[in-house]
């Protein structure tokens, strides 16, 4: 019990004094996850919209596969990305292993199906609502997708935030492909795992508080967006 209280006090001290290591690790976490969310959203949002409005033979199978990919074990994703980026792998020549770029690649693979699946659900409902109007106005497929993405932007931002929530808390894949290298690829989750192992609960708890703060911020942001949806003025 003493260790926990001591750790909490030390953690608060690190937070209040804006400890350099804490800031560096937090900023790297944000850099990796925000970049992964941006790429994942750029792929997942149009993919979800496309799956919602396009009718093709194996559409149901594609949606089932997409939903199944939401449950991809991050450690397995990390292993596959590791094998692809390692020296002997097909992309080894790029020298990306143990860099933030490798961590972004792994996170993109993990969060894109989640973003696409939530986007698909949201756009499918909106498409059912807009179908007659957009067909009647003789819109092209591109115009339909753009309209649905714009008018469904609030649930789609929620999809991206869900991707952020999954990415920021992820540890298995980025530990494997990033290597948890100090001042290079160490992020909040991998640092917490390391510091806990070392018995440095102060830094581990400090990092944990930051992680909890980021998760709460995402949830509050999601809630706030939901409220604007019901607002009188847009």
């Amino acid at each position: 019990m003493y260790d926990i209280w001591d750790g909490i006090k030390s953690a608060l001290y690190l937070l209040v004094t804006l400890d350099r290591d804490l800031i560096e690790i937090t900023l790297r976490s944000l850099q990796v996850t925000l970049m992964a969310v941006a790429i994942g959203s750029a792929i997942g949002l149009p993919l979800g919209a496309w799956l919602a409005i396009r009718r093709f033979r194996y559409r149901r199978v594609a949606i089932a596969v997409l939903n199944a990919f939401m449950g991809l074990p991050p450690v397995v994703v990390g292993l596959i990305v590791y094998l692809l980026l390692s020296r002997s792998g097909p992309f080894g020549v790029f020298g990306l292993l143990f860099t933030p770029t490798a961590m972004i690649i792994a996170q993109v693979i993990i969060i894109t199906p989640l973003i696409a699946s939530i986007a698909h659900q949201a756009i499918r409902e909106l498409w059912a609502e807009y179908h007659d109007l957009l067909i009647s106005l003789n819109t092209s497929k591109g115009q339909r997708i753009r309209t649905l993405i714009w008018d469904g932007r609030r649930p789609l931002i929620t999809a991206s935030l869900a991707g952020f929530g999954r990415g920021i808390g992820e540890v298995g894949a980025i530990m494997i492909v990033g290597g948890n290298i100090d001042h290079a690829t160490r992020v909040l989750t991998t640092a917490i795992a390391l510091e806990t192992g070392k018995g440095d609960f102060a830094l581990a708890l400090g990092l944990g508080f930051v992680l909890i703060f980021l998760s709460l911020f995402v949830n509050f942001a999601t809630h706030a967006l939901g409220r604007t949806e019901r607002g009188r003025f847009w």
Partner: protein
Amino acid sequence: MKATLPLKLRDVCVRRRGKTLIGPIDLSLDAGDLTIVLGPNGAGKTTLMRAMHGLQRLSSGSINYAVPTVAARDAQAFVSQHPIMMRRSLRDNLIYPLKLRGTSRDEATVMAEDWAARIELTHALSQAAPNLSGGEKQKVALARALITKPELVFLDEPCANLDGHATRDIETMLLAERDVGRTLVMSTHDLGQARRLATRVIFMLKGRVHETGTADSFFSTPKTAEAVAFLKGDIV
């Protein structure tokens, strides 16, 4: 620019799960009329309107405009019984079809504000369109359909579920459009409304066109027993 009309339907049938919803229907629509598609519930009015506009796939038969289908689709609009409000402000709902046609934002905004004034909703321009009342939504849907000056407008029971004031406002707008020569095709089962608006009537029953003609001849001398019964208010 070549006129879209006349519109010709030949042996049009729509079936779903083995059941014939409408057809076979042979019909011709000319420019300048306010045609009322009249009939009881379940007569196939909505299916016919959707088929003519291209929202309903045909099981057999053909629908031909005087111009190629793509050009014809650009020259028409559709207003449904349940107005579809985009999740945007009233202003942006009115601007949307104009922007699709390449109108500049400034010009589209001026036109949207002009139409908002016509439907007496200037005060609500910045409001979320889905939060408007039923009557206001229907007026917005009608304004959005008319703002691109389509040659032909289909209206599927636009006054269903509206109160007397909202119905009168919609009818006033439709009469103004009829007077400027726009071709309107509107379905309704409201006899009073049909008498007030129609220049031509298509009477439907059980998925088929039972009788067509000018409004005067249909209401004064209906040709079929079913039309006589319907006009008397009997259940047909």
